[in-house]
């Protein structure tokens, strides 16, 4: 049984289906990467899994339990974490308060997890009293990831974690994602930097017009000439 199993998901905003039957399965050893052209429904799929987009058909299961259309706070309790693409921090709150908000539903673990997050992202320890809005882009992304990790999720969803970051930070964030995955957290992310992302992916999903086009390991997708030509810029 997979950690996450989405079958024939249909959904979208206000009755309009952007997703037209998408399948996706992720295990806890997996790093799943969703790639595809603009408007393919990549972010919509991620949001549908996290209860932010109405699911109108198909089913989404977490460890065999249906989670379609559950509220995000219920999903956090079930062990999911979500990092939105932008506006993924509380800018006027300090770094530490940002992290505390991540553990809102599990306040008793806050202290232990803070130490863990600070040792995982050492730059955040120095800046823990600073408003998160004053940090650099890469450090903000660390705050965003730290916040989502505070509940010790078993499945982490990331919406374009490297958008707008310099190549140096991009590699750093990908390295961290691999480390998080090795610690036993299933990862599913949407990425524009498709090539670099597929290099670390165990599962790759190519979406187009709200449907699966290719589903394979990251390695195979990178070596698939048709995928390379159409979606990876040759």
């Amino acid at each position, binding site marked *: 049984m997979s950690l996450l199993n989405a079958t024939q998901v249909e959904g979208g905003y206000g009755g309009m289906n952007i997703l037209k039957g998408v399948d996706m399965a992720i295990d806890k050893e997996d790093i799943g990467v969703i790639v595809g052209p603009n408007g393919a429904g990549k972010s919509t799929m991620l949001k549908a899994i*996290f209860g*932010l987009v109405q699911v109108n058909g198909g089913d989404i299961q977490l460890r065999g339990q249906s989670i379609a259309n559950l509220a*995000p*706070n219920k999903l*956090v*309790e079930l062990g999911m974490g*979500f990092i*939105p693409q932008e*506006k*993924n*921090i*509380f*800018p*006027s*709150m300090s770094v530490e*308060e940002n992290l*505390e*908000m*991540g553990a*809102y*539903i599990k*306040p008793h673990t806050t202290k232990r997890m803070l130490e863990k997050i600070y040792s995982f992202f050492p730059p955040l320890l120095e800046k823990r009293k600073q408003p998160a809005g004053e940090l650099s882009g890469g450090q903000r992304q660390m705050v965003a990831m730290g*916040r989502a990790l505070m*509940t010790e999720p078993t499945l982490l969803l990331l919406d374009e974690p490297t958008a707008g970051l310099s190549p140096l930070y991009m590699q750093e964030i990908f390295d961290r994602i691999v480390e998080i995955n090795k610690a036993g957290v299933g990862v599913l992310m949407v990425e524009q930097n498709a090539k670099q992302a597929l290099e670390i992916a165990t599962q790759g999903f190519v979406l187009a017009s709200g449907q699966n086009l290719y589903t394979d390991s990251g390695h195979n997708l990178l070596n698939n000439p048709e995928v390379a030509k159409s979606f990876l810029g040759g």
Partner: protein
Amino acid sequence: MNELVFFINKVLISGAVSGSIYAIGAVGVTLVFSIMRFAHFAHADQMTFGALIVFFLTALFPGSGAALGIPTPLLMLPLAMAVTALLAIGIDKTFYKPLREHGVKPIVIVIASLGVTLMLQGLIRLFSGTSSRSMYIEETKAIFRLDLPFDLAARPLVITEPQITLIVFTLLAVIGLHLFLNRTRTGKAMRAMSDNVDLARVSGIDTNKVVMVTWVLAGSLAAAAGTFLSMDVSLSPDLSFFLLLPIFAAAIVGGVGHPYGAIAGGYLVGYAETLSVFNWTILLRPLNNWFPEWVELPRNLSLVGTEYKIVVPFFILVAVLIWRPTGIFKGKVI
């Protein structure tokens, strides 16, 4: 010396009194705005409503505060704060929540709150009539006259019991609010929701609960401010009419969505009002001998007449919106 005492009585004390009322009111407006992103026009009527509850309770049990040595309205205040908090939650559940869940634009909820204002004003008049009433039933207001230890000062400092209680209450409310927002889990969740609603929801914060806590704070503070004001002057059903503009001016001057800004804005508007209606001739008169002969002090040297006090917050509001639309503290631009 007497003139200085007069200045303290007329400006420092009365500015602190109206400033405190505006500050408490503006905090409520700003909290509601920062969580739900709409200007709540019915806020001032919750003040009148709270004061009315205190009045009814006082009329039902007159003199019951004597046992504790406090005025009865003060004894009834906590109960009225709770009732007003419930009213605020009820109004939200009935009128604003359905609109919010439909995902309407904030302006629609603002208009709804205008409707609630009219409704509340009608209800208040239905039950209390249109006349003003004293909050002191079978009791007298304690007035303290503090003689100053100077020979030259023949006039005493005058301050009333509700004024002292109001200033102390405001101070405690500010400290309490600060600790609540910075030290408690729910307070931090409120700040988080004000910062980024979507991320708050994604983090597992129960946004409905935060909304409820916001109404409890706004409603109970409104009831307190209304009661203190009514104890200081009198309870009249059009109380809110004269409060709405200064309170919104205070919230906007301070930077909307910024609780500390609202407090600063409240005192700024309060003092601006009292300073502009103060007759400065009184302070200048003792210096008359030093002026050249051709200077004659006018009898009244106030900026605006008392009856035009309401233009002061209006002017401040316009000035802020033109020159610094985000307010003193950086608030959310509307």
